[in-house]
């Protein structure tokens, strides 16, 4: 668990004011305890700052079980870190007072993965849109509240006549998800953490939703954490990317660098496996290495058991995050000799948002 990133991370106090949200050596471990010997390190020593100015869009990519959703939940304050700390406007979120906590809850908004789980089936969908308006006093009158809601519905491509007044089961998964985006838009937060916001939506609507998320970032300067398993949409909308594998950040940096010139063997495998929309560019017939179960007893690189380049040291000790370019870093011993130094906070290799 104690990686190089952890040992050298800077204290939050030095740059806490430049960042809206800051993760300092955050680790989340599930399981363990007296009776359970199996532990899962869902997030392993992540340091990351989200700047106040030009925050851009950060994609967090990885397969299921990579820890990307856990990272999202940590950022939202839904679960506390096992080790490390998360700072909001310079204060540790575990010690926020009531007012600051409320502020944090409004400023950092989620768009969750499963639009089936977040609704109470007994309430009409109006409830999920109206309650934030009421709770945070966004409108002075009922009609103003309604106008706000209608406007945000239209931004995500929904007709209010076909959504308001309905129950969740009367809407499709895509519609429900867009309502969640609309809900996040209502509060005009500083950070949106969107966990697979388009995985249950059609390609044509995907562009609409991602387009509106992009607009929020570009026009309103809202930072967006876009959690996804889809590297293509990550490439299209984000400025920077974090690639995770079994809890570790294996590669990170400017999205063009990471996707078009991946340096970690896992990222290379991911990029190679993207189903390219071109029938003349088909996948290699060689079977990619088989998935393995998470073996958390391995103290070294998590990808080593599947890695075609694995060396003896890979399974012995976790490599540090080597800087391989101005805006790119990889957690892999292959880069030990050409490394430009070790990266402390992931955001050190980020290109600033446009």
């Amino acid at each position, binding site marked *: 668990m104690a990686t190089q990133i952890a040992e050298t991370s800077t204290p939050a106090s030095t740059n806490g004011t430049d960042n809206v949200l800051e993760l300092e050596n955050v680790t989340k471990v599930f399981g363990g305890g007296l009776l359970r010997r199996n532990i899962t390190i869902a997030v392993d020593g992540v340091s990351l700052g989200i700047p106040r100015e030009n925050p851009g869009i950060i994609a967090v990519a990885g*397969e*299921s079980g990579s820890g990307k959703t856990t990272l999202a939940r940590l950022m939202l304050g839904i679960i506390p870190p096992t080790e490390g700390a998360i700072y909001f406007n310079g204060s540790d979120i575990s010690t926020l007072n009531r007012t600051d906590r409320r502020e944090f809850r409004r400023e950092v908004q989620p768009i969750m993965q499963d639009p089936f789980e977040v609704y109470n089936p007994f309430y009409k969908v109006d409830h999920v849109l109206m309650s934030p308006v009421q709770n945070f006093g966004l409108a002075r009158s009922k009609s103003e509240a309604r106008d706000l809601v209608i406007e945000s519905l239209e931004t995500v491509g929904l007709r209010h006549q076909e959504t308001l007044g309905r129950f969740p089961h009367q809407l499709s998964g*895509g519609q429900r998800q867009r309502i969640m985006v609309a809900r996040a838009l209502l509060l005009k937060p500083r950070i949106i953490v969107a966990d697979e916001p388009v995985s249950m939506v059609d390609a044509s609507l995907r562009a609409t939703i991602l387009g509106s998320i992009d607009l929020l970032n570009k026009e309103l300067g809202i930072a967006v954490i876009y959690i996804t*398993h889809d590297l293509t*949409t990550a490439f299209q909308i984000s400025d920077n990317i974090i690639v995770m594998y079994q809890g570790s950040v294996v590669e990170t940096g400017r999205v063009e660098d990471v996707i078009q010139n991946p340096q970690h063997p896992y990222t290379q495998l991911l990029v190679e496996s993207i189903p390219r929309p071109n*029938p003349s560019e088909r996948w290699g017939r060689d079977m990619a290495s088989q998935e393995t179960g998470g073996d958390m007893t391995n103290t070294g690189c998590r990808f080593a058991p599947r890695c075609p380049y694995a060396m003896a040291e890979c399974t012995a000790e976790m490599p540090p995050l080597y800087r391989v370019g101005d805006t790119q870093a990889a957690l892999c011993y292959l880069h030990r000799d050409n490394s430009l130094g070790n990266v402390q906070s992931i955001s050190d290799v980020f290109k600033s948002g446009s």
Partner: protein
Amino acid sequence: MTTAEATTAAVNVDIHSENVLEVENLKVYYDTDAGQVKAVDDVSFTLKRGERMGLVGESGSGKTTMAMALMRLHKPPAIIAGGTVRLDGLSLLDLNEEEMRQTRLRDIALVPQGAMNSLNPVYRVRDQIVDGIKHHTSGDEMPNKPVLSERVVELLNSVGLDGNVADMYPHELSGGMKQRVALAIATSLRPKMILADEPTSALDVVVQRQIMLTLEQLQQEMQASVLLVGHDMGLMAQFADVLGVMYAGHLVEFAPIQEIFEDPKHPYTKKLISSLPDIEVKGQFTGIEGLPPTLVVPPPGCRFHPRCPIYNDDEDFRGEFTDIRGQLDTSLCTTVDPHLNEIEPRRWVACHMYERSA
């Protein structure tokens, strides 16, 4: 009795035809409080032996309803309101329930959307594979236990799993492994046709690639045809030989995959392909304007006309279609539902722009 009837049906088989699946004017409707929904309206296409067909469309376009109706697994209140489905000459819509049940898995097998939910959590993998074989094999042909056991291991190996997976329960398997078990079950009786409904939608790209390559290998080895239902054009480009595009209950285009990507004919397909994001160029991320129509009251004439770049004379599309649009009587678009016509061999399109040349 079953065999006798199957033989009668087999008389109609045209032995010169290499078509395995022939769908003609298939209609699947369902009644709702708001009125009758024509979820699948007059869909026709043919699939050759060993051919892999992709079927794409937005949710609500009818692609899953259509695929399920081919196996007569459509859920009520959906009813097949007309048309024919022939599998190797056998008219599936004329079979009785028991015959249809026998035909499923043996001749036409399904790889379901979420294998996570299709496997029974309280039975070992072995029992679930054997179950399928038992229920589709008549008494005297039923292999004995050791042979069955061997068969299970063979099947698991064929999908890239170790034989010891047979003794595991579904919860002990990863998502990819469960989907492989589903593939093993679907191919256990060497069907003529495999129907796969978004088989990899819940899996990550690396596992998706492995599963699709495994499916391809099995299908080629068995010379089975595949209908892959989905919405990922990238996956279709990787896997399919021919592609069908559905829009609002209609099949609007059907063509070989290479041709449809290089030269899509229907404006909807054109938009679909030009709006595909890739990892080469940034900022090519656009959608198709407008929303899919409600099927209770579909737009009059061509169902795509409210969003059609040709009908609406969209600037971006003008150049390419200037000549052909000049000849187009756009009043047809709002009044007459276009037919699916074969404008070139194996190139079918339902659009008034091409009616002339048909």
